[in-house]
């Protein structure tokens, strides 16, 4: 259990409550990365202020899981509860996918395959600035279907952008099925390694292991890919590993069950 103030269970409750109120899906995708984002915001990212030019950068390349990011930004104090409650309402900056106009969001995402290039550019900028700020990009495993991810991977490795860390949320699910059935990306670690990255495999729901992986990522002289083995829908038994929770909103009964499980899991 993380001792950080970005409590993953509090994040899960936000994900469930806001998804239910807004009646939107992508719940499984958000729950999948809660523990990763929790560790990032509690223990890894150095962000004294979301507008500080020397802050570490974070790219949520799998933008459809933005609710997990909003939850962390809220618990971090960068986003008010009132702003959070505007999620997916008319006129809000908090849409299903994150927008840079919202303080705390460094890059607008939503279409897969863009974020690692943004992050490589951000890491290159840090090098040109002779800054020690770091850049993190969180991708989905299915996002690695996109060729542009590998263009960015080649560039970062060639230029030894060691301040760049990619985290791949390996939940084995994608929009229409299991990644193993849709487009086999394994052995993913070998693939990243062959592109010149240091792959680190980790249980993506174990905060201690994640912290160790991030420390390892920061220590090397080549970019690091943390392959976080996760379960889509983690924390809600009837969502875990179930492809429909990529899209579906919850009924009242499902919401009650999900909340009970998350509270019990504290």
């Amino acid at each position: 259990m993380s001792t950080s103030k970005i409590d993953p269970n509090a994040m899960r409750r936000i994900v469930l409550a806001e998804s239910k109120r807004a009646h939107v899906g992508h719940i499984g995708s958000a729950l999948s990365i809660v523990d990763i984002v929790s560790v990032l915001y509690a223990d890894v990212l150095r962000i004294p202020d979301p507008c500080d030019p020397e802050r570490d950068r974070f790219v949520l390349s799998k933008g459809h899981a933005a609710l997990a990011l909003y939850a962390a930004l809220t618990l971090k104090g960068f986003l008010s509860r009132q702003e959070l409650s505007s999620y997916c309402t008319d006129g809000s900056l908090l849409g299903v996918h994150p927008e840079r106009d919202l303080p705390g969001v460094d890059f607008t995402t939503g279409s897969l395959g863009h974020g690692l290039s943004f992050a490589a550019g951000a890491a290159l900028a840090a090098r040109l600035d002779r800054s020690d700020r770091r850049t993190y990009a969180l991708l989905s495993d299915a996002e690695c279907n996109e060729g542009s991810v590998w263009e960015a991977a080649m560039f970062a490795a060639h230029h030894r952008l060691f301040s760049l860390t990619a985290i791949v949320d390996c939940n084995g699910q994608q929009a229409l099925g299991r990644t193993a059935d849709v487009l086999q990306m394994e052995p993913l670690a070998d693939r990243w390694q062959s592109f010149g990255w240091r792959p680190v495999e980790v249980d993506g729901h174990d905060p201690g292991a994640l912290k160790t992986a991030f420390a390892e990522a920061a220590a090397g002289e080549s970019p690091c890919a943390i392959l976080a083995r996760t379960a889509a829908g983690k924390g809600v038994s009837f969502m875990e590993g179930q492809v429909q929770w990529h899209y579906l909103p919850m009924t009242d009964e499902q919401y009650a069950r999900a909340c009970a499980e998350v509270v019990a899991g504290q």
Partner: protein
Amino acid sequence: MRTHFAQALEDIARSDKRVVLLTADLGFGVLDDFARACPDRFFNVGVAEANMAGLATGLAEAGYIPFMYSIATFATLRPYEQLRNGPALHRFPARLVGIGGGFEYGINGPTHAALEDLGAMRLQPAMQIVVPADEAQAANALRATYDLPGPVYYRISKREGLHLPGLDGRFRLGRIETILAGDDALIASIGAITDEALAAAELLREEGIRATVAVVSSLNPAPVADLVDLLARFPAAVTVEAHYASGGLGSLVAELIAEGGIDCRLQRCGVFAAPDAVSGGEAHMNQRHGIDRENIARLLRKALCR
């Protein structure tokens, strides 16, 4: 023009340390001086235009002014969504430099013909579009726009030694520049093909038709007020562009005429048919597709009902 443009960029980069140049492995011999002058701000990113656009977005977020260099078709079309979701959506000052408009890559064939780059970029309202007509204007246009907020697409000619009489390097964002005055009709032209537009105006003069030739180098922001004013003064106009007849200058002028209820008959001189397998030099291809002086003159006579 591209050498001239690259030299102007190098001059700017020497004094403005925010300027970074990325190339997707193109620009043989053209970018060497920049690379020597600013080695730490020059990156050949490899044959990877999509990643180049994403890198530029990341660099711009940190306050840099990244230039992305490639052949116009590759620069605009391969990374189209990256440009849209990157510099355009973020309103970042990334600069895209596309070399070779229309058939300037001639014998290289249809994969290298930039016939829809302006239209594609014009569909993105955030993307400013600068299309110099000669070398002096290219250098001045770069100096005037390199530091603008928001992204810019520069369509830069591959032809060297381009000098357009009467232009004198003038460039103003959102304005037109008149290089020849006449009372009978208007020829509005964009880019390096403007030398053909001027040649057509000279042919027509021999027949007693005196056309004004206006250069549109700022396609976005569009020179709306200038064009509306000019179009209202003439009974007939021809637009000239090394581009498909749809999407670029001809479309802009047609929109202005229709929306403004302007009494001016328009003919668009551009490429109407998709290129076939036949290739040849630029002049041959321009003639084959009707973007040459004879056809510009013919279209103006047609617009004038002569």
